[in-house]
């Protein structure tokens, strides 16, 4: 497994030398969504606290970095950490309310969705950050402003983000913290009875997860160059974040990455092959159908299945 991962990494590092800009763009989104999925994985996968409002953290991170850059001229290289910190603060608030008052399962889902919606409506009605029109960022291609004339730079940054988040999760998995989180997911009451401060560890998971997600917001802002409340705070983005680790295997190290490598290319390929010749929309049906198949046959996610397969071979 380790050798396979290293070999895959080597291929990914060398890839920009051989493939075109379109393939790079697809891979940039693969990495970026894998990064967001990995960040979600800490609280949603390992700790089993299903957040469907992670778009709020992307939005806050993106708006913060963009506003600091547009208004105060602060480079997004620093702004991204301010955005991450603000997201972590919101994560702490949501976590406190949810965990302090013992909201579990669907109730926690509703809480996170509600917070994301509040953020969206506030952004929609706040003139100072562009209201419904949102923010438009000027493309300059200046690396100091987190912009690059060459797609390859974005490629390596997105790859770096994904690897960094994976390293964080890898570390958590190996620490006592990770074991506590898994225990909380499996049986919170038993875990508490054994003397684990479940509130503390759930809060910690939420804060780390929302910080990482907020940092990702900067990448979103400076790769797509405009921010609208409906797109960065909307439920569809939250679903995009959640669906990759679920397909790949929530609560596993490779899940979000594998899920992203399955879903993004699937969406692109189905669009490429089925969206031509007046069949607009057919690719979405194909994509939806494939998604159903994955969920039907790999209910635990693709990563655990792959591991079992490799273990049997070996």
């Amino acid at each position, binding site marked *: 497994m380790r050798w396979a991962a290293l070999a895959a990494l080597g291929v990914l590092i060398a890839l920009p030398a051989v493939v075109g800009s379109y393939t790079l763009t697809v891979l940039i989104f693969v990495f970026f969504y894998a990064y967001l999925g990995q960040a979600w994985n800490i609280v949603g996968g390992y700790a089993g606290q299903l957040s469907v409002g992670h778009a709020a953290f992307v939005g806050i991170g993106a708006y913060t970095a963009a506003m600091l850059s547009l208004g105060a001229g602060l480079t997004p290289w620093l702004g991204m950490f301010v955005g991450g910190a603000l997201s972590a603060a919101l994560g702490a608030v949501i976590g406190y309310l949810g965990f302090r008052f013992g909201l579990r399962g669907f109730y926690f889902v509703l809480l996170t969705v509600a917070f994301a919606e509040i953020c969206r409506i506030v952004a929609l009605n706040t003139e100072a950050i562009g209201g419904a029109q949102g923010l438009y960022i000027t493309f300059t291609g200046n690396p100091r402003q987190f912009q690059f004339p060459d797609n390859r730079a974005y490629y390596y940054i997105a790859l770096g983000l994904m690897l960094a988040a994976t390293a964080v999760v890898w570390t958590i998995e190996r620490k006592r913290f990770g074991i506590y989180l898994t225990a909380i997911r499996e049986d919170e009451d038993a875990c508490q009875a054994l003397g684990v401060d479940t509130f503390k560890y759930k809060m910690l998971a939420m804060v780390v997860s929302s910080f990482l997600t907020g940092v990702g917001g900067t990448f979103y802002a400076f790769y797509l160059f405009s921010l609208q409340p409906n797109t960065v705070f909307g439920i569809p983005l939250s679903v995009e974040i959640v669906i990759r680790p679920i397909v790949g295997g929530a609560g596993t190290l490779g899940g979000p990455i594998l899920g992203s490598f399955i879903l993004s290319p699937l969406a692109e390929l189905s669009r490429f092959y089925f969206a031509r010749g007046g069949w*607009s929309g057919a690719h979405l049906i194909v994509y939806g159908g494939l998604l159903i198949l994955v969920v039907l046959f790999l209910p635990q996610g693709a990563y655990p299945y792959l591991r079992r397969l490799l273990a049997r071979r070996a």
Partner: protein
Amino acid sequence: MAILSLGRRAFLRTTVAGAAVAAFPLPLGAQPKSVKIGAVHPVTGALAEIGQACRLGAQMAADAVNAAGGITSLGGARLELVPGDTENKPDVARAEAERVISAGAQLLVGAFHSAQTAAMVPVAQQKRVPFLIDISAADPITANVADSVKKGEQKVQYVYRNFPTSRVFGQRAAQFMAEIFKEAGVQPKRVVLIYTNDLFGQTQARQFQAAVKERNPGFEIVEAIPYPEAATDLATEVSKLKSLRPDVIAPVTRATTAILLLQELAKQRVEALGIVSPGTPGLYEAGQIAQLKELVEYVMDSVPWPNFKNPRTQKVAEEYVKRSGGKTFDTNSGYSYEAILVLADVLERAKSTEPEAVVDALKKTSIKNPLMVAAGPLTFNETGDNPNASPAMIQILGQKPVVVWPRDAAAQKLVFPRPKR
């Protein structure tokens, strides 16, 4: 025996290779040269109907150019559209822009939604692919690029737009209203704005308010009443509006709330000289008129509109009805059609597909008789916008939308104030 000995690997190898060849057909033999244009629109998702109208408009224009002999200065080169679908998402818009360019697109048009268009702009600038925005109103899209070129951060501007910007929408609405009131010989003082509180409604309302403040057209907006985008009842908003005793009601709606609003205004018997919108959907589409009937008669709306006084527009509109299975040629299909005509004109003059030559020709564009109602010839200014792109004031007369202002484009005389029932 050869077939039997075909192993699993060999089978895979040949079928995959075959599929790859089938998927990327290479040009065979001596075909005439062609210029590929990436046309990226929201063909699926919430804006699917609009995106499909845009795509069909662009395709019809390319067919028309090809039928007339293609681009003469390029040896009769044909225009070939490479269609793309944004799925109404900015990230997909960016990936699709990359994809159509990798499929050979030398020019781009698109993308209706301002956020999606903005996501395509850096691709056009990075890859030096001239991008003519057919529809998108947000001012900063082109202004930002012009700004960064001026500051020397970018060398060349590759992004241009033939569509009125949000600012122009507000300015023209205020101007048209003042002119119409003068023409009708009345002077309404109190205008109440009522708008849907979403991206579109907020933008329109804000720009209209700014324009009225700036131009001081003899009337004032006494109040701007927002309502939620998914409203199912507007009784409170309308009774508030009624208490303000408006001379003119200026609505910005969505299709479903337009019906709610007009019905509620009738129910509460709100009297006013007329309903004049600074620009909204929901008040002129065939389906809406069929549902609203008398309620929508005499309602005015400032929207981009095809200029049916231009004989070419009439011909295109008739063909559009046929090819779309009965839909009307409107703003969306119209502007996407016109964008391809502009690019054909540009290529003809550029005599090349070299990006810099195309940009030079784009800047020198001057088309006398555009398909759409405009305030003058189709040109591009220093920000890359067409300063003459403009909405027109239409009015529902005899249950049909008709251009009534500006005077040169008017097909019928306007009726204001609304006759008492």
